[in-house]
């Protein structure tokens, strides 16, 4: 009951946010430099032709009229049509989203599994050798540009060492893809019992996931370390030590009390990394939502850009809601509210 009410309230609060995102995205793509009409019509088109296309697309209307029409169609589940592919945007999103989700969830999941213990270990001996090393490695994850890291990974592991397969998409060209069920090649291959496809999909995932995990783990390490150090400096830990609790028990208390803030942080990371996925996807020719969205932005494909941003916004709302519900269940503060 409490959870239901909490969820409803959060969704109500999120509605204006999403509306704001819609408005800003809609206006931003239209006041940019790109003129999709010129791109669509091609270099041979004359003035009359351009005007005709413009009218056809409704781009001659005042911006607010266009926005009202967009909202009206959106309310009916119509996200518009991509000018690039001439496909409904909704279909494109449904086709591309699982691909990105697979990559992102794997990387953020691995980033958390690696990042949290590393951050804790570093916090228990600040400035020790482990802390120093983890700090340097996470600094790399923070500061090395994504595209450069991707290109270097390809150069070293594919070109020099030949350990990784060619960075050309999600599956080797010699392998027959399993029938699409979830959109995740790993899950679909297992479902179809297609082990060759599974092996190829995992091999293709190796490099992008490694790069992405490093990027995802770095802030998790830093945050976990900071949270744990704060808890370690608290008087209740000091009391536990004065009272004679073993270092193991003290570590357990720290871990338990760090869960909620670290979980919240990973949630915020998940949403921002979904956007960051576009660069990784671009470099590894991944063809996911990020790749598609980045292309749409470069080509001035208005409806596609709007659909892309809307998907990210809704996903964020969803992730934050799930995280808040988890924290609500974990925290004594929440249960009595």
């Amino acid at each position, binding site marked *: 009951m409490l959870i239901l009410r909490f969820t409803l309230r959060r969704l109500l609060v999120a509605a204006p946010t999403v509306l704001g995102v819609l408005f800003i995205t809609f206006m931003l793509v239209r006041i940019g430099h790109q003129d999709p009409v010129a791109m669509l019509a091609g270099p041979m088109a004359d003035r009359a032709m351009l005007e005709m296309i413009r009218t056809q697309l409704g781009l001659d209307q005042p911006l607010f009229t266009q926005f009202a029409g967009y909202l009206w169609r959106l309310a009916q589940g119509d996200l518009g049509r991509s000018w690039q592919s001439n496909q409904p945007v909704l279909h494109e999103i449904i086709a591309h989203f699982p691909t990105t989700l697979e990559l992102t969830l794997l990387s953020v999941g691995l980033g958390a599994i690696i990042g949290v213990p590393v951050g804790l270990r570093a916090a228990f001996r600040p400035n020790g050798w482990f802390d120093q090393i983890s700090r340097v490695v996470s600094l790399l994850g923070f500061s090395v540009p994504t595209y450069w890291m991707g290109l270097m990974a390809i150069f070293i592991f594919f070109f020099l060492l030949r350990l990784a397969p060619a960075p050309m998409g999600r599956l080797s060209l010699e392998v027959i893809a399993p029938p699409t069920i979830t959109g995740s090649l790993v899950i679909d291959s297992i479902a179809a019992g297609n082990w060759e496809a599974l092996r190829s999909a995992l091999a293709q995932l190796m490099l992008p996931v490694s790069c992405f995990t490093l990027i995802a783990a770095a802030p998790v390490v830093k945050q976990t370390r900071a949270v744990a150090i704060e808890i370690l400096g*608290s*008087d*209740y830990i*000091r*009391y*536990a*030590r*004065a*009272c*004679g*609790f073993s270092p193991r028990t003290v570590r357990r*208390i720290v871990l*338990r*009390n760090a869960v909620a803030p670290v979980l919240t942080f990973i949630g915020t990371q998940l949403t921002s990394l979904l956007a960051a996925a576009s660069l990784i996807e671009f470099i590894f020719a991944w063809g996911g939502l990020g790749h598609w969205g980045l292309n749409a932005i470069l080509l001035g494909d208005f409806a596609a850009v709007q659909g892309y941003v809307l998907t990210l916004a809704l996903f964020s709302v969803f992730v934050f809601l799930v995280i808040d519900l988890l924290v609500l269940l974990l*925290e*004594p*503060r929440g249960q*009595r509210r």
Partner: protein
Amino acid sequence: MTGQAPILAVRDLVKRFPAAKGAQVHAVNGVSFEIAAGETIGLVGESGSGKSTIGLLVTRLIAVTAGSILFGGRDITTLPEAEMRALRAEIQIVFQDPWGALNPRMTIGRALDEPLMLHTDLDAQTRRKRMLEIADRVRLPRASLERFPHELSGGQLQRVCIARAIATRPKLIVLDEPTSSLDLSVRAGILQLLEELRKETGAAMLFISHDLETVELVSDRVLVLYLGSVVEQGPTEALFASPAHPYTQTLLSANLPPDPEAKLARHRALGEIPSPINLPPGCAFASRCPLVLPACREGMPASHELGQGHRAACLRIADGSNRLVD
């Protein structure tokens, strides 16, 4: 002082912390004192005087640089952690900030249960009984045992911390500014409770505070700390009635009486409290003392006995010129 052997004897305690560029912070500089069983010692001083550091050293939350701390005759500075753990039931600590001293994710009952679980072999039922007794004793509503810290008031939380500290029947309780973060009205109740508990349990108390009135109220004897050194110590009454060290005189004169009509004899120390990094030799107060002599900067002045264990470390006491006058 009572005639019994001291429960705690601190000898020449020194604690230095490393600071930037190889410098050292001299937090505690050769402090010695004793606490008899059932006695309350007040430790007063400004921020940075090292009083809280002494609390942490006595509970062995941090290691000493030099000196010894004898608890019940055993030097706890060299005791292996395993043996120390058994002693920890007998030395308990209460912190200044009760909101931070309790695990926010643990019920009050659990917080009281933990030291009992760790230090006694009692079964859950007996522990529960003891918990209820203690809760009643510190006048904590029994219902609050099921609550989480954020559901209680500051005064109640400090009662929880005190309850937790007496649960294992300690011989020494270190109270690090236990009332400083509480409202004045709540403060009196806590002080009264501490006084009652001392009479009942016979636990000695090391009461650390910068609040002179509180210290005067609860302590049998008072130690005045300045920059890590004890400049004066003695029975509370004697020390407050006739402070001998210029620093103590300054400190006491800064304390405003509640009577707005009272005429204030205010003595001011010169300048600011110096940095405790790389202290010069001599009296710690020399740089601010209005009565400073050249000899004060040369070596630590010896302690002068003023009767009844009232001692002050000031060169001027020898010829009686140690009084500050307006």
